[in-house]
């Protein structure tokens, strides 16, 4: 079987080379007027066949894990006989070679969908398919020559494998990497379309329109992947937090930030024919940052607890990144006239300006994260010694930028396209501003002390700005709902439903903003975290916040995969028994590594988070570390809101024909002063 896997990868490489070569040749011939449809079709079909070959290789590797084929070095190092079934499947992406194969599988799956849906725009898809084939060719080169997943063990084959890293033996690890990779890899599709459109001087709106849903789905996957990772860190790593600004975490954030900027700025191109160059470079940057992130985590350039071992494949990524940049730059320079803006910005106080500044803030944040991630390397190069750039740096630099971004998120929807008068801005800003001030006063009355602690200051600002955004979004829904209600006789809630279905993209976007704000509220809770560590013998008590923990027992268990120690703690809140919690530490036999299993009692108000930190060898008593983390549950709730908003935005809007009751009243100008252009119901 391993030989079949190797052959499948080699065959996939040949197919990708053919897709690239034949696709390029067909496009070149078509450009000079020579008929090449059949050649182009063979390239497309070869592109489809890549998926079959790569899927075959991935199947072989998973099969090897399930059948405990330890003659394959990768399986020997990342699986063992007693590993539970779901984790054997997860072994596919738990090591360098397997994760690259998984990356290639996802890329070929995206390519498959793209090539099957070629009728959406045959010529543009042909360009995109060829560019995607170039990316596939690179990854398949890596898999065939630099990081081969089917290398065989030399000499005696061990009876059992080394096992999966204990930190990865957690249910979320079965879905977190696929989500993250779907996000990373997915940006290759809009990148391929953007570059293809630039090469063929295609109208900007068209490629953006075709790739809009790709980009949104990809962005949603990346967002889910990032937050699943955060939840995994919170639940497994056992340090009481969910985001540590580790280089690998940062690597996932970089394309997310530019991707978010892209999703906003494309609206300016779609609506007003502006920012064409900006958008093309934003999606180029997003794709290149995905590759850069992969380089950072696999080259050993920056140290990370998540990073794969240092290897020579970092150089491959640098070359690929360099070639990608040169190709993008070449076609941009050659065809830049095609990207000239069709309109100008007419006012600083306009929707366009808010998008522009919002993009700037996102890019500033992206730069700050990238700068902090790479600064240790720069410092070593210039000063001769490394420095650590840890969470204090990233928090101090990024939190103010995030505050500014929240402010723009609140103000943006209140601004009209082209220009907004100060009078209308003031009128529409009054209620949200009152909500923000009321929130700040409420928090101060509840004991938040921003003058004593920077964390309190940031939490106060974040929650006040969150209130501002929520009030703005609600007022947008209510204002639009009232207009429809007035002209159709529906009640306000139904009108808001109709409004959302008719404008799924806009109002789905607002729901996404709400999700982000809910997440921000959850993050702001970190300012009020409490923690305590104590040795707890039988009947010992620990008090933290409103909770009292009483140790009832501490014991051990054993199974073929791991042995464990855990404490049994009665938990009381304000004197009332809540139940028992079992913080645990496991020792995995195959890998000879230990891991904590956190006990977490989560409510909307706060989490009681317990860690079995170890055992005092002198007294043989467990050491329990307890955290009270306010509002953490809102982070995970926010993600669901965000996913819901993305789904709403992806749904095609209901057409006027589907809303006959609205046709009766068109056109009617809505007397909402914030919009400079009359808005017509039924549009």
């Amino acid at each position, binding site marked *: 079987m391993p030989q079949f896997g190797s052959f499948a990868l080699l065959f996939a490489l040949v197919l990708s080379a053919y897709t690239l070569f034949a696709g390029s040749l067909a496009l070149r011939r078509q450009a000079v007027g020579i008929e090449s449809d059949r050649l182009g079709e063979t390239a497309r079909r070869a592109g489809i066949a890549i998926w079959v070959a790569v899927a075959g290789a991935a199947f072989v590797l998973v099969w090897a894990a399930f059948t405990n084929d330890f003659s394959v070095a990768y399986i020997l190092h990342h699986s063992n006989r007693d590993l539970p079934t779901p984790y054997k499947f997860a072994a596919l992406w738990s090591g360098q070679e397997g994760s690259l194969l998984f990356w290639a599988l996802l890329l070929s799956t995206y390519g498959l969908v793209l090539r099957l849906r070629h009728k959406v725009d045959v010529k543009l898809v042909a360009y995109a398919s060829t560019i995607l084939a170039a990316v596939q060719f690179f990854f398949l080169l890596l898999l065939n020559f630099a990081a081969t997943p089917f290398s065989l063990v030399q000499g005696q084959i061990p009876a059992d494998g080394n096992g999966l890293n204990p930190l990865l033996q957690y249910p979320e690890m079965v879905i977190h990497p696929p989500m993250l990779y779907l996000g990373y890899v997915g940006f290759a599709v809009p990148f391929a379309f953007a570059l293809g459109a630039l090469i063929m001087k295609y109208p*900007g*709106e*068209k490629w953006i*329109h075709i790739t809009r849903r790709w980009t949104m789905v990809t962005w949603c996957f990346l967002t889910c992947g990032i937050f699943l990772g955060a939840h995994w860190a919170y639940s497994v*790593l056992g*340090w009481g937090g969910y985001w*540590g600004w580790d280089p690998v975490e940062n690597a996932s954030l970089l394309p997310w930030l530019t991707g978010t900027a892209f999703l906003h700025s494309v*609206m300016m191109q*779609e*609506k007003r024919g502006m920012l064409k160059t900006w958008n093309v470079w934003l999606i180029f940057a997003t794709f290149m940052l995905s590759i850069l992130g992969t380089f950072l985590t696999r080259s050993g350039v920056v*140290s990370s*607890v998540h990073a794969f071992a240092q290897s020579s494949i970092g150089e491959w990524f640098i070359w690929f990144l360099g070639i990608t940049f040169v190709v993008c730059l070449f076609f941009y320079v050659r065809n830049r006239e095609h990207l000239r*803006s*069709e309109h*100008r*910005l*007419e*006012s*600083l106080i306009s929707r366009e300006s808010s998008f*522009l500044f919002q993009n*700037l*803030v996102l*890019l*500033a944040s992206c*730069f700050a994260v990238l*700068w902090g991630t790479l600064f240790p390397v720069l*410092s070593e190069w210039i000063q001769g010694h*490394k*420095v*650590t*750039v840890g*969470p*204090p*740096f990233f928090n101090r*630099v990024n939190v*103010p*930028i995030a*505050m*500014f971004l929240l402010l723009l998120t609140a103000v943006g929807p209140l601004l009209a396209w082209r220009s907004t008068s*100060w009078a209308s801005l*003031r009128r529409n800003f009054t209620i949200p501003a009152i909500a923000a001030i009321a929130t700040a006063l409420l928090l101060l009355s509840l004991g938040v002390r*921003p003058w*004593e*602690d920077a*964390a309190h*200051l940031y939490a106060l*600002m974040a929650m006040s700005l969150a209130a501002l955004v929520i009030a703005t979004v609600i007022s947008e829904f209510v204002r639009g709902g009232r*207009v429809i209600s007035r002209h159709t006789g529906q009640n306000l809630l139904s009108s808001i439903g109709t409004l959302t279905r008719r*404008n*799924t*993209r*806009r109002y789905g976007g607002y729901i996404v903003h709400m999700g982000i704000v809910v997440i921000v509220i959850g993050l702001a809770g970190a300012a009020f975290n409490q923690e305590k560590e104590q040795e707890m013998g039988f009947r010992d008590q620990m008090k933290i916040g409103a909770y009292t923990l009483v140790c009832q027992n501490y014991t051990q268990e054993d199974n073929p995969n791991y042995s464990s120690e855990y404490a049994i703690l009665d938990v009381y809140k304000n004197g009332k028994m809540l139940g028992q919690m079992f913080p645990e*530490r496991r020792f995995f036999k195959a890998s000879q*590594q*230990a891991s*904590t299993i956190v006990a977490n009692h989560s409510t909307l108000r706060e989490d009681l988070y317990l*860690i079995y930190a170890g055992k005092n060898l002198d007294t043989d008593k467990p050491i329990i570390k307890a955290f009270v983390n306010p509002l953490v549950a809102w982070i995970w709730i926010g993600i669901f809101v965000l996913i819901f908003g993305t789904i709403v935005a992806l749904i095609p809007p209901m057409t006027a024909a589907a809303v006959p009751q609205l046709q009766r009243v068109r056109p009617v100008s809505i007397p909402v002063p914030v919009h400079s252009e009359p*808005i017509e*119901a039924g*549009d």
Partner: protein
Amino acid sequence: MHLRQLLLAGFTVVLAIALLGADGDRARFQDLGHHRLICPCGCTQILLECNHVGCQYSDKMINQLADRVQKDSSDDSVLQSFVQEYGNTVLAAPTHQGFDRVAWIMPFAVFFVGSFTAAAVIRNWKARSPAMLDSHPASPDLDPYREQARKETEL
């Protein structure tokens, strides 16, 4: 006009406070252990958050920190003693001296330069003659897409 000045002043104050930060008076031990020092075992975790099983450093360093905070009144000299013992990487963030200062300045410099550049570009666009834009009229081919975008993003 009045509102504009008010908003501008408000934003400036908020931004200034945010950038300057507001140092609290939490216990020095908590501050140094949670914000200033990192565990040097390779786990890259903040000292008081290191839960690395079998870590050779964190327990020892936490005891040292408690001891040195009691004996030494200056945070800087406590930090310096750790740097001398464990090297520069023991500090959780770059210092505000020498080349390290660049780490702190650069993100905000880029942000402000970007903002001012964007504002200048917008002003420049505003000042441009409409005739310049007429030389690049919008393609009518794109109208259906703009119409769809307008429908999807506006009421």
